[in-house]
């Protein structure tokens, strides 16, 4: 019962944040509501027993990635979004299509009778067990993701620097 109340509380915050992201017209408000969604999702992970995933969710997602978003919004001085002809077409076609798809998924999920209940803290994902899995069974994917993130960092530096800055190299007067 207590588990259900906690699930509904944080789930309500999640859904409210997601809807607020759609409703707000200024991107900084959308970013802040996305942070609320991510923080309450971390609480849902804790309810499922995935404590390490919850910590990483707060540190990496709500911390690092969203800071990147907020800094970009402030750097580009993004204002209110303007309504154009394309947005009306997208609303007319997008909203009914997505709602039909969502109702179909919800109907299928709720009418499956073989879904069992998950007790609180069902599977303890402590760092020791996760590290053992990550560095034995998933060692190759782990190394591949480290290469991926290295390439992504280099690509971000090349793309975000002003045109010609990378090819020109460091300025003479700095060294």
């Amino acid at each position: 019962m207590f588990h259900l109340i906690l699930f509904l509380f944080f789930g309500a915050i999640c859904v409210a944040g997601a809807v607020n992201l759609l409703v707000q017209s200024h991107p900084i408000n959308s970013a802040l509501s996305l942070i609320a969604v991510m923080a309450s999702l971390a609480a849902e992970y804790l309810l499922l027993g995935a404590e390490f995933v919850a910590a990483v969710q707060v540190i990496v997602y709500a911390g690092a990635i969203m800071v990147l978003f907020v800094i970009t919004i402030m750097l580009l001085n993004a204002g209110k979004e303007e309504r154009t002809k394309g947005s009306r077409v997208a609303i007319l076609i997008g909203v009914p299509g997505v709602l039909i798809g969502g109702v179909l998924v919800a109907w299928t999920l709720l009418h499956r009778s073989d879904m069992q209940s998950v007790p609180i803290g069902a599977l303890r994902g402590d760092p020791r067990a996760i590290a053992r899995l990550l560095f034995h069974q998933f060692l190759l994917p782990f190394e591949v993701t480290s290469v991926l993130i290295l390439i992504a960092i280099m690509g971000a530096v090349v793309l975000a620097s002003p045109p010609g800055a990378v090819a020109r190299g460091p300025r003479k007067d700095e060294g």
Partner: protein
Amino acid sequence: MVPLSYYLLLSGILFVCGVLGFLIKRNIITIFMSIELMLNGVNLSFVAFAAHWHALSGQVFVFFVMVVAAAEAAVGLAIIIAVYRTRETLNVDRVNLLKL
């Protein structure tokens, strides 16, 4: 005790909100945040299924999704900065050429 379908329903709602934001939003940064919302919805179903099947590998895959999301955010935001530098707009309707 919470049924597994409730967790999957919450993850489905988050995913649908992400798809809706991707379709109806015109600001390129908000579209990007909708993609992050979709990835979060998928992560929740990964963790819920891991608890359901008692398989810890579901939680390990959440980390891989997070790494991909971080790489995507870094490269995507750099592309947004490059687009803004040449076009001076964040509206996707006004960005209709790949050429810088």
